[in-house]
């Protein structure tokens, strides 16, 4: 369900939108998840978010769950139930494919970060054939987002998380306004314009691909 529908009183009783954002520690996954959560609050929904801090953030695999709903119990979502799975990094997106619901949308950055385990000879980074096999098994068609190159072209490669957030927002449907207002909260004023530009670029990239889009 798109959040536009979620905001209309009649549909409110059934709102249950589940986001799963995955990537590598340091990519800004938690900040993006924070913004998704606050947009849900701004929409008047019950919102819960779960993540982990501490050691796992040091370059490890990072997962954040966000739920919007009429009434949300568990902050953690079950596998096979994510309405949206956003992979901020290719391998991490693949790792968490099982989270995606049958009718869920998969948004994937094309960015690769090779884990130290691979550098040390502990396995190979999955190639495109493995990717295709996994997508097929998950019944998912990835919406690819060139997040890093897009952000780099805008002058701030580090804002690639906002490109993905924009892509997610475009898929979830609706208008930019509440998202941009919530981005302005945590992002320092000095880099806000870059972040907003990155968000809009991500939005433009996937605009028209979401259920709630016009």
């Amino acid at each position, binding site marked *: 369900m798109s959040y536009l529908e979620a905001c209309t009183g009649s549909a409110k009783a059934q709102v249950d939108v589940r986001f799963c954002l995955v990537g590598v520690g340091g990519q800004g996954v938690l900040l993006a998840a924070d913004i998704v959560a606050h947009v849900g609050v701004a929409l008047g929904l019950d919102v819960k978010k779960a993540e*982990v*801090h501490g050691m*796992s953030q040091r370059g490890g695999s990072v997962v954040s769950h966000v739920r919007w709903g009429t009434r949300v*119990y568990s902050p953690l979502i079950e596998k096979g139930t994510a309405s949206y799975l956003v992979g901020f990094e290719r391998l991490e997106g693949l790792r968490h494919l099982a989270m995606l619901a049958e009718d869920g949308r998969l948004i994937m950055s094309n960015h690769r*970060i090779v884990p*130290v385990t691979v*550098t040390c000879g502990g396995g190979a980074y999955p190639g495109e054939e493995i990717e295709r096999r996994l997508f097929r098994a998950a019944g998912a068609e990835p919406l690819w987002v060139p997040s890093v190159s897009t952000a780099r072209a805008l002058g*701030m490669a580090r804002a690639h998380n906002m490109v993905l957030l924009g892509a997610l927002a475009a898929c979830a449907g609706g208008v930019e306004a509440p998202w941009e207002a919530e981005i302005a909260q945590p992002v320092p004023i000095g880099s806000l314009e870059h972040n907003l530009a990155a968000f809009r670029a991500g939005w433009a990239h996937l605009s028209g691909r979401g259920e709630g889009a016009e």
Partner: protein
Amino acid sequence: MRVAAGYPGTPSTEVLETLASMDGVYTEWSPNEKVALDVAIGAAYAGRRSLAVMKHVGLNVAADSLFYVCMTGMQAGLVIIVADDPGLHSSQGEQDSRRYCKFARLPCLEPSDSQEAKSMVGLAFDLSERFDTPVMVRSGTRISHSFGLVEMGARVCCEDDDDADPFVRNPQKYVMVPGVARRRHPIMEERMEAITAFADALGVNRIERRSSALGVVTHGIAYQYVREVLPEASILRLGMSYPVAAERVRSLAADVDRLLVVEELDPVIEEEIRLLGVACEGKSLFPISGELSPQSVREGCVKAGLVPAQADGMVAEAAASAALPMRPPALCPGCPHRGVYYAIHQLDLAVNGDSGCYALGFMPPLSAVHSIGCMGAGVGQAHGVAAAAIGERSVAVIGDSTFFHSGMPALLNAVYNRQAVTVVVLDNRTTAMTGHQENPGSGSTLMGETTVEADIGDIARALGVRHVETVDPYDLRVVESALRDAVGRDEASVVVARRACALSPEARASRLPLAVDAGMCVACGQCLQLGCPALCSNASVLASNGRETTRIDALLCSGCGMCAQVCPVDAIRPGGEDSQ
């Protein structure tokens, strides 16, 4: 509430950080959890509501103080917030802090969401003062690090200092010598009986009557998973998980055909229910180790025949066959600890490590830490290795915050007992692992005040160490020669590797990524031995020897230059693409 003290530890850290922003509350990072609890106890003895905050393993450090304060009681409320880490996201063990409640005799409150995480602290203070007992509020990762909507009440501030009573002189209550403590013990037991009776009247021990076929007793975050997986079940949600509200348990048990207990980690509630003579099922269905989740609760319910089994999707199977490489946490690009671990690796030293980001030095390719137990353990262990006289020199590696926490007595011990131990202090001037909290070496307090900056070299000298050397861990040659010198001595020695954490604002401000000149790179793999996440082999560029060359991910590179120092052909230079 007036005084709050703690030591950072995931997932408890944010409690004090949040309180520090509020007027009228004194907050501090203490050097360790025992000191923090003693500080809170002192304030409560002095008639001010106080709070101590720590993670589960921190409570082990503070346990001695927990036991005496359960004997004495206080003059004002004392609440201890303990955050457990089921699933070990960032800990050396997953222990259930509720066990301490039965052991030391104090009640335990467990919030099920963010709203209760706030409101139960108020309830805890009320209970604390009503029964003259410290109260534990137990959180966990999915309470501490979750986000939810909270309705705020009006803030009630502490009364003015002018009205304060003087410190109460009451040795029959507060001086725990055997003669007094002997008389306090039965008082403590009577208090627990009174709290147990009161538990049945407590609103947070809530019965939700639905189906009469199935009743579930649950607590904390597990309540949410039960609501999700078994929406029709009747539920007794124990907001106070110890002592257990006996009559409420009996009442639910009498109304349902089958009683389950869904609890995270130990079967604490289950054991109490069995002691009441009430039949229930718990750990026979749900795991005793690891974090609960809607998934694991569902799997337990499948085992119990309560919900249909899920078809395991093709994805899991496909993912297993794809053997995706793991991505465990790693030392950050530019981490100053890397320089020390690289030198240790080159010298092939045996190392007793400690708790902090630097624990990650145990991972390949550095493989430079060979034991990790708990905060402060490494120095004592290295001392023991020296005493064992096996002919191999052991080195202890410890972070600055851990050194202040519990490394200092162990170093004093090594000097006093004449053991030739080398202690390397990884001094990044902050408590990095938990997100850069101040410590006695930072020069500032949690409340933002400037203070004395403890110098680790000076402390080591004051403890009697005669050989102390401070080095810049980015200078690989200097680190290696300092270590070689230190371990060659027949007395205790200290090497302080001092440089700000790579994630500190000052280090991030001066980030200048490096790049590999692919034409010069001979793909010898030397730089990859640093285990830096910014370095990887680049499959698209093959060097003349047919091996892959190395690439630097400019988005990750901090520009520390360690890889440039180990490169034999000088192929690594400034000029990475992203300078933002």
